[in-house]
């Protein structure tokens, strides 16, 4: 290790600390709010004056939150699987094959990435209500996988481009069938790409609010973001601050875990492989 100039060290420490604090502060505030006793929730203090787990118990007592969690998990998972599969096919073709219309597909997916979801929400509501998909899982899965495809294709094709395809040919030279070569050589190399894409798509679907708010109403299909936004308070006239904070904390935990364990992959995926950690 070179000698580190103490001023530089101090400078970087400050920068790092600042970033960590700013990034985490809102989350810590939510945790603090969620632990506050309902009678003191409006007191405006940074740390709770009285601690209680009542808010957490409360949100798990009502089925609205647990149903929303179930919906979020199921819908995001299914949308992820479908999007990753479709994107894998497309990305493979884009990365490996020559065919006319390649640019068109890329431009189209770029266009979709820039598309305002709000412009689609109205017609989708009208369509769904006429064919009975309003407030159903497919009703959300379809827009989710569609709007996740550009990101998925982008990340997957950059992963596919990194794979040394000559290995496949080398395996075939060694006597493997094309299928075997693909399975034993290429797939393991492509697996991280699948995985990262799946994580990013899952985060996208888990996060969405516009579609969930517009195309669902009840515990049949309402996901967590929409459920939190319409949390009932204790009565018609009270604000559900503590419950919202508790639900917010719960729903952030999977994300924190994902980010903690897969930070390298996520950064690699989003920077198209430019940064490998």
């Amino acid at each position, binding site marked *: 290790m070179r000698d580190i100039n103490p001023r530089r060290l101090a400078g970087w420490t400050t920068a790092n600390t600042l970033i960590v604090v700013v990034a985490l502060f809102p989350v810590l505030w939510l945790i603090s709010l969620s632990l506050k006793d309902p009678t003191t929730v409006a007191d405006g203090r940074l740390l709770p004056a009285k601690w209680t787990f009542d808010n957490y118990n409360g949100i798990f007592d*009502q089925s609205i939150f647990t149903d929303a969690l179930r919906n979020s998990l199921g819908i995001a998972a299914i949308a992820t699987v479908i999007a990753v599969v479709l994107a894998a096919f497309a990305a493979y073709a884009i990365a490996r094959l020559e065919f006319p219309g390649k640019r068109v597909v890329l431009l189209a997916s770029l266009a979709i990435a820039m598309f305002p979801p709000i412009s689609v929400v109205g017609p989708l*509501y009208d369509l769904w*209500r006429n064919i009975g998909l309003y407030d159903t899982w497919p009703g959300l899965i379809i827009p989710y996988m569609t709007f996740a495809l550009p990101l998925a294709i982008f990340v997957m094709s950059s992963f596919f481009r990194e794979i040394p395809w000559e290995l496949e040919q080398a395996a075939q030279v060694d006597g493997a069938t094309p299928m075997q070569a693909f399975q034993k050589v290429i797939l393991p190399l492509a697996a991280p790409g699948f995985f990262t894409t799946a994580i990013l798509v899952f985060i996208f679907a888990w996060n969405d609010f516009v579609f969930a708010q517009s195309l669902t*109403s*009840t515990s049949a299909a309402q996901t967590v973001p929409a459920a939190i936004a319409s949390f*009932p308070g204790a*009565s*018609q*006239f009270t604000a559900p601050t503590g419950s919202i904070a508790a639900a917010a904390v719960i729903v952030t935990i999977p994300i924190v875990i994902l980010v903690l364990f897969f930070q390298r992959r996520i950064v690699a995926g989003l920077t198209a492989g430019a940064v490998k950690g």
Partner: protein
Amino acid sequence: MRLVTASLSTVIVVLALAACGGSSSSGKTATINVWAGTQPGGSFQDAAKQCSASSNGAYTIKFNALANNPDAQRQSLVRRLAAKDSSIDIVGMDVVWTAEFAEAGWIKPFPTAVADRVRTGMLQGPVQTATYKGRLYGAPGNSNTQLLWYRKDLVSRPADTWDGLIKQASALPKAGRFEIAGAAAENTTVWFNALVASAGGKILSGPRTPNFGPPVQEAVRVMGELADSKAADPSLAQQKEDQNRLAFQSGQAAFMVNWPFVYPSIKTAAEGGDKTAKQVLDNLGWMPYPRVNANEPAKGPIGGFNWGVSSYGKHKAQAFAAAACLASARSQKIYLDKDGLAPTISAIYDDKKTQGIYPFYGLIRKGLETGAPRPSTPAYSDVSLAIYSTLSPTSNAAKPNALDELRKNIKTALSPKGVL
């Protein structure tokens, strides 16, 4: 006798329908899905259970909870009703939705026999809110009106009129706030409508005809008075009813115009050890809704919920019977007991128990007898939006162009173009 006949006819109708087939649930017992905001004491669920039990197997009510504020409830319900959702049988409708839901064909009018039975013994105001084009579209399950709450230790005798109250509050050396909900939401329309009615007028004289005469001008003036006075809460433009209650309960206000939920809320806080709340509770007084003109009694707001029957449910006959039961005297006693909701049936107010638990209920009944419902129009949500987007923040009412803005916005709301 009428009750027996009505019950028998209902049972016969139900049996006949069941015999004709078409019940998707096992046997003859239909599952009736009720969707409404939940009450903290669970009274709706209790009433639902009791009605199911006494229906002799005709129906079982399943209670489904909606979000807690009427705006969110409406948002959720209208999208599903427009999607012809058959999993809704009965809706708990805020009193202002009747015209909109009826006109859109989302709810069905009550059959005459059931309607007559429901209306028997009910107070005028609530029944009006459930009526559209002469037919009854909802069974009024509970009602609500606002009172003037005041601190006896700060003001020995509150004035009768808004102007008087504002003066009294402003003159107090401290804790002289006048709490009222001024957020840009339904609460502002409630206030405005009550003012217009108390001044002797109506906002609309027909489903699409607005009035802008002296009563409307007077209402706008009063709102501006309060917003500009020393007595106004600094957060007036952001406050909803519960924030008013919290401010009053923490001793900052001398007056508050609010629904009666504040009484059990303050009581709970006081019993929970909040000393200021206890002091407020011990000195709590109540008066009828403030007047606009000194010699004309006020016409307070009418709130509450009506039970409507969806057009898309599969068991309409049972649904009407269930809705009627949910609005029956027995159910209303449960709502009163567990959640302090004001009954719509006059006789219940004579009950000594009622008056013991809620000492101000005489004022409530009077308020419901004389109160003014908000305008009955299918475009109600647009009209309300026009009103509260103009008059909130309340200080807008004090501006010279307030009336013109109001006129313009209400007219746009009523035109077939719709409003942004």
